[in-house]
């Protein structure tokens, strides 16, 4: 092969070729970077589950099982049951540490750094809480008047997502963490008389449902939760899959654009050189030799681009782990390389490039030498479409431009695609950022309470009822396309001081209002009938969606207390929770959950830092893609029209007029792309959120600010103007002699 020729061709269109390499690189980098990072993270989480014996599920009952009961159930259902001992200790008003007994078969502690527990005076902390609150290995910490030495940081599989309550949206390591003690260490501090007991189990799913029925009949079962619906365990998988899917979609679309560009560029090269090809052909070169001649450069460019992309993807996969590491704790994540990434990152682009080049080439080379020599396939041909669109009524420059756009429709479509994709990425960045900020702002504004305590025992609720307002809360599930999703249903008292929802008190029979996020997340509609599943009682109830509530801070169904009782067929008093403005002084074990407005807000604020960084990455990527795609495609159009450009320059058109004829008006294409990009950005964001929050009891509605739309538009315009300045230089550099040399 003649490498000198290839090198010359590469140099002659340096910027164009480099942009092409860049585009291939970005696509492969995105696919490889995100997939390698997220796959590694998922594998690391799976390994943690396997090596440290994650539970299959857990249940909480009132009171506790005797050893004998445990053994008989284990034998009966071929499962293992283990008490999951833990107690919440309040370090001060705002900091809670959940102390967990680490001497267990299930959910064992993986050491992240430091040493494992070797004596009852030692404690292991979760790394995020330790980092946020400046606890170092070697420090001492006092728990229930006992001093413990911090010997290491570690995490168990059931707290990878260190949520205080299972219904929490995000962890908040500033205020909540977990600590692990040995059994004897735990005994020293656990002097509290717990009313409820948490058990973990392992076993197969057929036996599990029998276990649940069994427990339901014989104990007061408070919660029964398989690992899939435990967001402390499950969220990490959903979360890692979101960016992975997104990266595959973006990467594949980019590869399509790349393929488009290859085909356009090959076709125009062939057309420009049709007479040369004809001569070579006539002199006895065969199709394969010619093919090899023309296939070299594009293949080489794709190869370089995908190698670079693969390399950079490998490099950025470690920093990209940050997306997950910001929220979850895992032992050191080993980056793993998989065959399919090599296939997707290197073989696929090469394959696509070869396929496209071969197809475009063989189509051109199937012509007879004579027809090539005659220039029948040269740039001078006019297609049917061009004959149809005459643009008679337009003024000269507009007509000229429009005709050029019709002529270059292949490039224009690719341009539209490129703009659409890059702007969709930009809009996704804006959507994620704006919706998260809006969510936080709305929480501050809209959450109508400061605290909600859910009581285990009715008597305790009665005792504290003067401190706030009673309400009824229940955790239920609904079936959405075959998978069960958790929701809360709340029954609100008449004349509530806290919850002011228009229309709530006129709900009858089994009517409920839904939070807006449920409409979007699960595609519910007003008028839908839902079957509520109570996993604990193993019963179902029916409700009808009457309307949308004014509150949107979680996955809630709202109704009035009378309807609530009707739905669940309750005749006695059904309140089980207390809404207050002030914290109440109550022992931790008497409430099954506490909702705290400021903790809810703090949790999500952690998300904002991450979202900001991700949005910045997306922004840079989008601008990069936009500029390369616009530059390359416009450059190809200009190169093709070189002779005509040279000609109009000879006539004496000024540089401004020349750019009016060959550059202006493309902005319309950008605007068209932008208009489509907004809904596309919404869809990508929703897909991302649907994946990440699939099993969370929260949802963020995709939202974009008007100013962000404007900002995105301005960024697009500026990038376009920058690219046009580069292109204008190209136009200015088209030589007058270009036309004089032409022999067509």
């Amino acid at each position, binding site marked *: 092969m003649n490498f000198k020729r290839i090198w010359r061709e590469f140099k002659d269109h340096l910027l164009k070729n480099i942009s092409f390499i860049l585009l291939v690189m970005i696509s492969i980098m995105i696919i490889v970077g995100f997939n390698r990072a997220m796959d590694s993270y998922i594998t690391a989480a799976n390994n943690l589950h396997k090596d440290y014996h994650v539970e299959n599920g857990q249940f909480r009952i009132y009171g506790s099982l005797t050893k004998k009961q445990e053994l008989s159930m284990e034998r009966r259902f071929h499962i293992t049951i283990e008490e999951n001992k833990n107690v919440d200790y309040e370090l001060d008003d705002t900091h809670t540490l959940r102390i967990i007994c680490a001497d267990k078969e299930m959910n064992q502690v993986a050491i992240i750094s430091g040493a494992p527990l070797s004596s009852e005076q030692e404690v292991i902390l979760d790394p995020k809480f330790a980092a946020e609150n400046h606890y170092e290995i070697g420090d001492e910490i006092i728990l229930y008047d006992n001093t413990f030495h911090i010997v290491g940081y570690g995490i168990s599989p059931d707290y990878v997502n260190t949520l205080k309550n299972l219904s929490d949206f995000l962890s908040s390591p500033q205020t909540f963490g977990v600590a692990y003690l040995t059994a004897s260490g735990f005994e020293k501090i656990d002097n509290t008389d717990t009313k409820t007991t948490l058990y973990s189990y392992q076993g197969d799913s057929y036996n599990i449902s029998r276990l649940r029925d069994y427990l339901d009949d014989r104990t007061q079962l408070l919660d029964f939760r398989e690992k899939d619906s435990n967001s402390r365990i499950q969220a990490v998988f959903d979360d890692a899959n979101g960016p992975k899917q997104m990266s595959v979609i973006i990467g594949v679309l980019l590869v399509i654009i790349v393929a488009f560009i290859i085909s356009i560029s090959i076709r125009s090269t062939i057309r420009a050189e049709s007479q040369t090809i004809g001569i070579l052909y006539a002199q006895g070169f065969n199709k394969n030799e010619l093919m090899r001649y023309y296939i070299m450069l594009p293949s080489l460019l794709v190869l370089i681009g995908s190698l670079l992309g693969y390399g950079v993807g490998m490099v950025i996969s470690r920093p990209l782990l940050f997306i997950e590491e910001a929220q979850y704790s895992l032992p050191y994540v080993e980056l793993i390389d998989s065959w399919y990434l090599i296939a997707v990152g290197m073989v696929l682009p090469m394959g696509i490039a070869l396929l496209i080049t071969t197809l475009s080439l063989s189509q051109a080379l199937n012509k007879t030498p004579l027809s090539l020599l005659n220039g029948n396939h040269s*740039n*001078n*041909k*006019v297609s049917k479409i*061009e*004959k149809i669109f*005459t643009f008679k009524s337009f003024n*000269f420059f507009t*007509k*000229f431009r429009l*005709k*050029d756009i*019709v*002529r270059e429709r292949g490039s224009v479509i690719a341009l539209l695609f490129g703009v659409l994709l890059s702007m969709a990425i930009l809009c996704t960045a804006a959507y994620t950022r704006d919706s998260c900020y809006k969510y936080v702002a709305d929480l501050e504004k809209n959450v109508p309470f400061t605290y909600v305590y859910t009581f285990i025992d009715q008597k305790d609720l009665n005792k504290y009822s003067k401190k706030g307002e009673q309400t009824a809360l229940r955790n239920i599930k609904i079936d959405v396309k075959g998978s069960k999703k958790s929701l809360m249903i709340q029954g609100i008292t008449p004349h509530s001081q806290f919850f002011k929802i228009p229309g709530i008190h006129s709900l009858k029979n089994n009517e409920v209002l839904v939070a807006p996020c449920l409409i979007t997340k699960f595609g519910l509609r007003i008028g839908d009938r839902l079957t509520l599943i109570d996993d604990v009682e193993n019963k179902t109830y029916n409700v009808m969606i009457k309307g949308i509530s004014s509150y949107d801070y979680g996955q809630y169904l709202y109704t009035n207390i009378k309807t609530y009782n009707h739905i669940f067929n309750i005749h006695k008093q059904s309140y089980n929770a207390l809404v207050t403005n002030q914290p109440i002084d109550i022992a931790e074990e008497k409430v099954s959950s506490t909702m705290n407005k400021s903790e809810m807000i703090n949790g999500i604020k952690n998300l904002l830092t991450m979202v900001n960084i991700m949005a910045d990455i997306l922004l840079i990527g989008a601008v990069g893609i936009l500029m390369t795609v616009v530059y390359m495609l416009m450059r190809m159009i200009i190169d093709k029209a070189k*002779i*005509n450009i040279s*000609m*109009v*320059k*000879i*006539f*004496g*058109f*000024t*540089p401004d007029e020349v750019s009016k004829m060959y550059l202006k008006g493309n902005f319309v294409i950008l605007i068209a792309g932008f208009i489509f990009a907004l809904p596309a950005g919404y869809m990508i964001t929703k897909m991302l959120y649907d994946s990440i929050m699939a099993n969370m009891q929260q949802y963020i509605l995709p939202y974009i600010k008007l100013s962000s739309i404007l900002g995105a538009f301005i960024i697009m315009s500026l990038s376009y103007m920058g690219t046009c300045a580069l292109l204008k230089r190209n136009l200015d550099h088209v030589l*007058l*002699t270009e*036309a*004089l040399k*032409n*022999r*067509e």
Partner: protein
Amino acid sequence: MFLEVNSLVKKYMSGETEFLALNNLSFGMQSGEIGVILGPSGSGKSTLMNIIGGLENATSGSVKIQENEIVGLNSKALGLYRRNFVGFVFQFYNLIPNLTIRENIEVCSHLGKDPLNINHLIEKVGLKGHEDKFPSQLSGGQQQRVAIARALIKNPKLLLCDEPTGALDYKTSKEVLELFEEINQNYHTTIIMITHNDAIKYMAHRIISIKDGQIRSNKVNEHRLMAHDIDW
């Protein structure tokens, strides 16, 4: 004098060695003349024409059009000069393929201050009925006529033609030459025509012959023939 060329020098550098494409060349032409430039291949004809047309700059010397010096002008001023003064016709037509015949001509009507009537011109160059066709649908001679009409539409004072009949057969060549003659008579356009066809010189007012970048002879043609009557 309409055109005055004085001591014109054009040097090309090819690697280390200098090459004088035009070597101290001088001549002049009156307004409204047809001038034919003859000379062997490589003698500098096209180079001379490109400099007169403002497509290239000379190394030294002077070219004055109606007393205005164009040697040494920057590219912007040269552009303006071409726009206001010059029309070009080349051996190869270089029409814009996706514009119709009318539109190809129209491109240049935006350049002059008082362009000719386009329908009139189309009729004059014998393209009536072809206005809405595309260049690829026309024969070579017809395409060359479009190129001529395109050069004329802005009504330039100077029409430069580099082998305008080089790609045409006898019959169409003669038609094109008759067209030039007509234009010269009707619009008083000064025409400089480069050709390898010796016979064409008989229709010129002035015959200039060039060799090795220098003028070999510059004669006024005393016995002009009509384009119709020349033969080769």
